[in-house]
């Protein structure tokens, strides 16, 4: 099997059921958006994992740089008051 480098890479997001958001599940190669959607259906939802699929060209994603990790994320580390830990969550609310 050849890994065809000429085909662009796509990131795949799947929503597992209504009410939840789409989650990133992986990536794949496809010639265009429609084929990417079909491939995603075959590769990532063949065991009933989802009811909705998004595909996004990998090149359209701007990622944070590992070099900036400290400046980006560390300042949030010691600010516990930003966490909503002072509320009690009703036990029937499973997805919050």
């Amino acid at each position, binding site marked *: *099997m050849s*890994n065809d480098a000429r085909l662009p890479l796509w990131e795949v997001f799947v929503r597992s059921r209504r009410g939840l958001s789409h989650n990133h599940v992986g990536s*794949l190669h496809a010639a265009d958006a429609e084929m990417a959607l079909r*491939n995603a259906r075959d*590769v990532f939802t063949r065991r009933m994992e989802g009811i909705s699929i998004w595909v996004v060209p990998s090149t359209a994603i701007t990622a944070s740089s590992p070099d900036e990790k400290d400046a980006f994320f560390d300042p949030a580390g010691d600010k516990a008051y930003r966490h909503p830990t002072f509320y009690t969550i009703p036990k029937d609310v499973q997805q919050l």
Partner: protein
Amino acid sequence: MTVVATDVAAVSTLRMADDCLVLSHRLAQWSSRAPSLEDDVALTNIALDELGQARALYARTAELDGTGRSEDDYAFLRDERQFVNCLLVEQENGDFATTVVRQLLFTTYQHAQWRALVASPDEQVAAIAAKAIKEATYHRDHAADWTLRLGDGTDESHRRMEAALAALWPYTAELFEADDLTADLVAMGVAADPAVLRGDWEPFVDRVLREATLTRPEITWVPIGGRRGLHTECFGYMLAEMQHLHRSHPGVAW
């Protein structure tokens, strides 16, 4: 319904079952060899769908012909001349273009067939059709999508698609063959009318070929015989590969 009529109905389900099984095996031969991992998964998914349809149809055939044979009996313990699949599905995979063309020509036919059989008076066949039509819709779209991309792709992909079309097109005549048996089956309502199927098949295939900038070939010769057990040379080799494990180890299970 008389015994004879039931037997005739079994011929119809057996023809469809053999179409599904043989195509399933051909597609499974792509496993680990498709142009990309994504296509590998897609083709084997379709192969499994076809296998599922074959199993349901063999089970129904065994009830109709009164033999009570198992799915394995039909798949592994019949010889070449006892298979009644159409010649198109047994044709070798060739290059990816050949497989795409075979998929387009056959799954469009199969889609039309399931659509007609949703209204079958045989409730079990109608139920199988109702489930299979969703799978067939995907199979047909998958083939149409690839036909568009390869036909209207590069010079090389276009050339290969034209060659595949020229090689496989003659085998489409058999799909709409109307022998005496077909007439009986249509009258009983257990098989789709070939004229209706063609009316469904032709506009779809023509439209896809046109959009894909491919030329519909002329019919130069009409190979038939699959429905009576007369197959092309490549089928024997395929069957030997498919059956050898079961025949070497009778009753083997895993």
